[in-house]
């Protein structure tokens, strides 16, 4: 008992040690970026240094916040719908082969749609409100969730199925008892991909036509030659995506055991 606690502690220490590595790399990267910009005397409209970018974030913080809330709202709403649909269709396709055969190609097709090109049509069909934005986020996030979940549902341990069958469990019962729990890691890896898409999805959705949001902010900065603000915007998008990702990882750690990342 005591021993295992110790190894747990050691493991924690080791993980902490490992997580410092990417932090060091990031710091070094930012440092070299600044040094290179200074050394080569790069004009800020060609490539702004990190100091200029952080200053832009600070200067524009109030404006950024307004736009962040709009984009986050779109991303979360879309993500919510995508998670719900992803789980429902994942379960349906994982449980019932004909459904899987019928739907899978359609889902793949949804991923081949060049959304940017369809932008004006989206504006015509759904207007400039909240709905078209949510639809675009759903289109981008729904696929990885349903597909990874489905795949893990169909490739779960077959021995377990046989045992349960021998014990007299129905198909639904063994699906519920054995397959779903075993497919949770798949569901979560789909979720992780989906959350990283969600913010970008919301940004793209604003390009079809909007009044506010990080995507609008980005194009306005770009066309008025504010390169540093453009970078600030990109930085915020990265941070938001990382936070969402981390959140999913934390939830996953709570619910799915014995997973070693890296």
């Amino acid at each position, binding site marked *: 008992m005591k021993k295992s606690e110790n190894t747990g502690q050691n493991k924690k220490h080791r993980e902490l040690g490992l997580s410092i590595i990417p932090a060091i790399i990031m710091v070094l990267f930012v440092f070299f970026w600044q040094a290179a910009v200074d050394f080569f005397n790069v*004009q800020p*409209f*060609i490539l702004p240094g990190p100091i200029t970018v952080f200053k832009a974030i600070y200067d524009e913080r109030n*404006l950024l916040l307004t*736009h962040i*809330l*709009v984009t*986050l*709202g*779109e991303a*979360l*709403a879309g*993500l*919510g*719908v995508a*998670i*719900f649909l992803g*789980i429902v269709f994942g379960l349906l396709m994982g449980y019932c082969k004909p459904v899987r055969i019928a739907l899978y190609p359609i889902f793949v097709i949804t991923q081949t749609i060049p959304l*940017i090109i369809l*932008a*004006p049509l989206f*504006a*015509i069909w759904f*207007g*400039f409100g*909240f709905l078209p934005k949510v639809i675009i986020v759903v289109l981008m996030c729904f696929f990885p969730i349903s597909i990874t979940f489905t795949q893990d549902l169909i490739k779960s341990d077959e021995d377990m199925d046989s045992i349960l069958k021998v014990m007299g469990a129905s198909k639904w019962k063994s699906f*519920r*008892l054995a397959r*779903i*729990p075993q497919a*949770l890691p798949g*569901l979560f890896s789909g979720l992780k991909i989906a959350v990283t898409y969600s913010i970008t999805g919301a940004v793209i959705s604003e*390009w*079809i*036509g*909007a*009044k*506010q949001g990080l995507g*609008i*902010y980005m*194009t*306005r*900065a*770009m*066309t*008025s*030659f*504010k*390169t540093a*603000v453009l970078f600030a915007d990109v930085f915020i998008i990265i941070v938001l995506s990382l936070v969402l990702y981390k959140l999913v990882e934390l*939830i996953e750690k709570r*619910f799915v055991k014995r997973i070693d990342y890296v």
Partner: protein
Amino acid sequence: MTNNSINKLKYIFLITIMIFGIAACTTQPLQEPQPEALKKVTAVLDWTPNTNHTGLYVAKDKGFFKEQGLEVEIIQPSEGTSDTIVASGKAQFGISYQESVTYARAADIPLISIAAVIQHNTSGFASLKEKNILTPKDFEGKVYGGWGSEMEEATIRYLMEQAGADFSKVTIMTTGDADFFQTSATGQIDFAWIFEGWAGIEAKQKGMELNYIDLGKEAPVFDYYTPVIITNETILKEDKALVEAFMKGVKKGYEYAIKNPEEAADILIKEVPEINQELVRESQKFLSDRYQDDAATWGVQKEEVWQRYTDWMFANGFIDKKIDVTKAFTNEFID
């Protein structure tokens, strides 16, 4: 184990619902309360807001639309889609260009231009001073960076042929949305097509010296209207009063901007704080004199200007039939 896994699923559903909740909360403040019985109208810009659009924002901010019983929502669409959106009726009004309206009408899409925002074409070909591009003849041996449309090629070819230069000696490169300064400063292109009142002003702000070839002065045929305000024929037919009301507000907005460039710039900055403020102020000073320019009143369009460029487009094969230009624009809502 059983209950556990079901619980996990329940949890995921719960989180989903929570996310819905959060999203619902964050979006609530966006829905502004509706004021008494104002008619809701949508106007789409051509792309990002800039000083071409000042009159619209002034009219909105100063209550010129409200006086007309309108509540106007100004939308930034994806680039080059305002025509389709106005044609579909999802927006009643939009910002476009003479060229686009001509294309649309040649394809039997019934758009109509109801005002010229700027009386003369304020665009042209710009290059860094050290490139020594003073006339279209100097385009020879140089690299042009543009959006990749045939219209650009034909325009450059026409200017060069007029000057007796060899068009085949120009390299045409598609740089898309990459901005003029980035591509010229890094030596990837030699000249580009810019709006004098925007990128031209920005060059001054950056302390860069440019040579600028004014398109309209170089060849009168290219002195067309850009941008224009458009609506579609159905709205014009069925709700003339709406067009009248909208244009009254817009005209008042631009007239205010002509008289008060500094206040107008401040209004634009207030309405669109994301854009470059110093650029807006300088650009506004430049454009306020040019909205109306030598015309009797703001917004007037001449048949001659429409006919000239339509003929050129037809002669160069951009449209396969000549449109009736008298139907493509109207001054009815200006006077």
